[in-house]
Structures are given as structure tokens and as C-alpha cells.
């Protein structure tokens, strides 16, 4: 077969399209659409989810995520600075922390904090505090690495320039390096926020009153009550209401600051 390169490319693409069409047809023809429609698109059940799904579940998800992210960011910044420290023990502690918590499923961390902290200190954690702490710890391990990479990618010249202008090392770090590093890590941090939004679904492990349910548990609870999958679709859409704008924001930021992290036209 003497095909030109162009013909071969076209043939390859044709095969890809054919496979895609076959898969779509197979799914479309074998799925029981009537049942799916009844299970997932029961308008009556969907309507009954409002306004609770917004005023209780969506609100709780946003609150848990936002609080968790603040803690994660604070802890992550500290850990990043510790990893870059000249003090060996700081580097070791931060390194161990990151490896430990990055390697564990978030589910285990939520259970460990929910039961462990009250047992160890003899005090009940408020539920919001417990989930905030758990999400903060889960997020901080990832954020620490992101921020560390960000700080390291600020050009050395920036530090030297600041120092030669007479700024102290502390001022240099706080006013010159960290602000630039944060601009660099904004897009990956936004992605971390999206991940935390989804991890907040683990709050059910801590036990909830009906008013404390976040999206995933609200959906599960309604699934049991109505024996319909429609609530799962409804809460799924609610997650997308949070996450799609965030990922759009992440892309915008990435475009604005460039993949190398520096603002376009900035001298390096």
C-alpha cells in the first residue's frame, strides 16, 4: 500500500472517528433510556430538592471548603518556608509532614481527626472546626509543594536587587519574593481549591444534623428517601456551579501570567 503521509493521516483519523461513533452507538442502543430517564430526571423529585439543596447543602459545602482552604493556605505557606529553611530539622519535619499527608486518603484523615483529636485532648471538636482542620491538613500538604516551587521560581535577581537596595532579608521575603511567588502559583492553587471542594464531601464521616449536611450527603440522604437517582444529578450540578467558574478562573490566570509563571513582558 503506497499511501502518502497525508492519506495515512486521514485514514488514521477516519478510524478514530469510526471507533468513536461505534462506542456512542453501542452506549445509546444498549442503555435502557426509559429507566435512566425515570431514575435521573424525575422532575418532581428534583423540584423537591429546592431550596434545601442551595440554602443548606451548597452553603455548607462552600463554607467547609473556604474555611479548609484558608487553613490549608496558611499551613502550606509555613511548610513551604520550612522546606526552604537552612535549619535542617525544619526541612526534615516539613518533608515528613508533606510525604505523610500527601500519601494518605483524605477519608482516613477525616476519620482520624474526627475521633483522634477528641480522644487525645478530651474535648469535642465543633463539626465545622473538625472538617476545617481535616481539609486544611489534606490541602496543606499539596499547597506546601506548590508554594515551594513558586518561591524557588522567583528569579534570584529579584532577591539580589532588593538586598542591594538595602531591604532586609525579611522584608525581601515578605514584600518581594512571596508576592511574586503567589502570582506564579495562583493557577495551581485554584486547582487545589477545586480538589478541596470535592473532598468536603467527606464531612458525612463526622456525623451531621440535617442542617449540617453538605451536598454529597444531602444527595445520598435524598436518594434513600425518594429511591431515585435524581438528587444525585441535582447535587452534581451544584458542584459544577462551584467548580466550573473556578477552573475557568484558573485558565484565565494561567493565560494572564503565562505558563512560565511570569507576567508577559516581564524581564527575567
Amino acid at each position, binding site marked *: 500500500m503506497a499511501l502518502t503521509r497525508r492519506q495515512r493521516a486521514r485514514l488514521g483519523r477516519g478510524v478514530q472517528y469510526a471507533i468513536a461513533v461505534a462506542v456512542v452507538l453501542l452506549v445509546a442502543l444498549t442503555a435502557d433510556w426509559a429507566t435512566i430517564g425515570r431514575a435521573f430526571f424525575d422532575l418532581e423529585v428534583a423540584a423537591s430538592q429546592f431550596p434545601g439543596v442551595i440554602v443548606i447543602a451548597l452553603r455548607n459545602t462552600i463554607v467547609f471548603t473556604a474555611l479548609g482552604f484558608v487553613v490549608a493556605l496558611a499551613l502550606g505557606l509555613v511548610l513551604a518556608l520550612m522546606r526552604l529553611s537552612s535549619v535542617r530539622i525544619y526541612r526534615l519535619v516539613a518533608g515528613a509532614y508533606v510525604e505523610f499527608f500527601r500519601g494518605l486518603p483524605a477519608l482516613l484523615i477525616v476519620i482520624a481527626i474526627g475521633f483522634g483529636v477528641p480522644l487525645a485532648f478530651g474535648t469535642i471538636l465543633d463539626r465545622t472546626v473538625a472538617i476545617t482542620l481535616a481539609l486544611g491538613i489534606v490541602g496543606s500538604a499539596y499547597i506546601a509543594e506548590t508554594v515551594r516551587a513558586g518561591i524557588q521560581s522567583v528569579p534570584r535577581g529579584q532577591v539580589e536587587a532588593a538586598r542591594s537596595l538595602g531591604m532586609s532579608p525579611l522584608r525581601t521575603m515578605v514584600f518581594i519574593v512571596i508576592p511574586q511567588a503567589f502570582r506564579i502559583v495562583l493557577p495551581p492553587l485554584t486547582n487545589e481549591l477545586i480538589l478541596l471542594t470535592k473532598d468536603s464531601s467527606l464531612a458525612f464521616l463526622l456525623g451531621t444534623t*440535617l442542617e449540617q449536611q453538605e451536598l454529597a450527603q444531602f444527595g445520598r440522604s435524598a436518594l434513600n428517601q425518594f429511591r431515585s437517582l435524581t438528587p444525585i444529578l441535582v447535587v452534581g450540578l451544584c458542584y459544577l456551579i462551584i467548580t466550573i467558574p473556578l477552573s475557568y478562573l484558573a485558565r484565565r490566570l494561567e493565560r494572564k501570567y503565562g505558563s512560565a509563571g511570569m507576567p508577559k513582558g516581564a524581564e527575567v
Partner: protein
Amino acid sequence: MPARSRTITSAVAVAATAVVLAGCGNSPDSGQAPAAGNDVQLVAEGKLTTCTHLPYEPFQFNDGGKIVGFDVELVDLVATKLGVTQEIIDTPFEGIQSGEDLNIGKCDVAAAAMTINDVRKQNFDFSEPYFDATQALLVKSSAGITATDAATAAQALAGKRVGVQSSTTGQEWAQENLPNSELVVFEDLGLLTTAAQTDQVDAAINDNGPLLDFAKKNPEMAVTAEFDTDEQYGIGVKKGNTAVLQAVNEAIATARTDGTYDKIYEKWFGKAPGA
């Protein structure tokens, strides 16, 4: 980077750690709430906090944004006796039956249609029994699976997929008595009954109360066997918390004598106790 700037980095790290730790220290301490009754200590002021695992119809389930059921009304009697209101926390069953939820002070009582048994008795204290139960077999009416006792059930269910609920006495019973069946463990009763209804499992084993209720509401399902396991439900209280335990026992005893118990029983099971 000169050495000095590295020490500065460390200094910033230490300072920031201090700030974060200080922030954590200020978190609201909801433990050790003052007593509500005479010597009854409750985990949250003015509330009798109940741990349960939803849904377990008709004992406790979410009915249009409100948790209702037999257990709920029984514990309401205890709350009324103590002059407080009941707050119900829905939490995974493992934490309830292991006693950890009570130990860490998540709740004052655990009311979750829970069978009194020796293992659980080591983890927490039980009230006097308030309900008799047995294990039962839920199948599709059309499947024709029946049994009279554990031995015939083992035969009828050999090679079949049998659904059970995580950490329940039903799971234990199935593990002991159905050696040749494939056991599928579900997180809650809703998932278990739905699985049986949609043929993901051939049969489901659970307490007779909720399965009979489910079969009544879903005519294509049937409870074809009950296994006389002679179980009794009790309300759980943290080990050594005699004040709350006494309040629970007194409330149950009063309800039994003044007819409230029978009234609640009839409301949720549609018949008088023992009928």
C-alpha cells in the same frame, strides 16, 4: 542566597506557625457543657444529642426534611423527662456500635435500632431492652426463595449473592450461617434494600422491623423467612454515665406502664406490641 536570608526564612516560618497554632487554640470549646438536669451531664447544653444512622425506616428516617420514627419518639420521651430537646446526628454505624461516638462525646445516647450483644456491651452501656427483633430474609416475591431456619436458608442461598449491612448483627448472622453465599456489604439500609429491589443481590438479610416495613411499601418484595435470633434493641450510653442511663431506663419504664409505648408502637408498626 546568603546564609542570613535563610535564617530569616526560618524565622518567618516559626512566626507563621505560632500564628496558626494560636488561631487553633481559639477554636470554640464545646466540650464540658454544664449540666442540664440534677447530675445529668449532657455534651451540648440544653440538648439531648442522639447518634443514629439514617435511614432505618421505621425506627429513624428522613421524612421530608425531618427525622422521625419509633426510636426518635422514644428518645423524645427521655428528652422531655430531662427538660431538653432532642438533636439527632446522622453518623456512620461503625462509630456508633464501636462506642467511639459516645466515648469522644459526640452524643449523649445512641439510638439506632441496635441489638444488645456482648461485643457492644464491652464498648458502651445499654439501656433496658425496648424492642424485640429477629433477622429476616428479603427477596423479590417472584424469586421463590424461602427458608424456615438457618440450615434451609444456607441451602436456598448457596451460590447466591446476599446483601448485608455493614457492622450489623445481620452481617454477623450471614457470615456464620451462610458459608456458601457471596456476601455483599452495604453502607446503609437504603442502599441494601435498593440493591435487592434492582437485582444487584438475590436476597438481603437485616432485622425484621425495617424489612417488613419495606416489603409492605414495595409489593414486589417479600420477607420470606424470619430466623428467631431473639434479639433485643437497647439504647446506648457511654460507659459509666449512670445518670443518663437511669433517665433512659426510667423513661422507657414509664412509657411501658402508662401506655405511651403501645401508642408509639402502633403508630409505627400498625399493630399492638406482641400482636
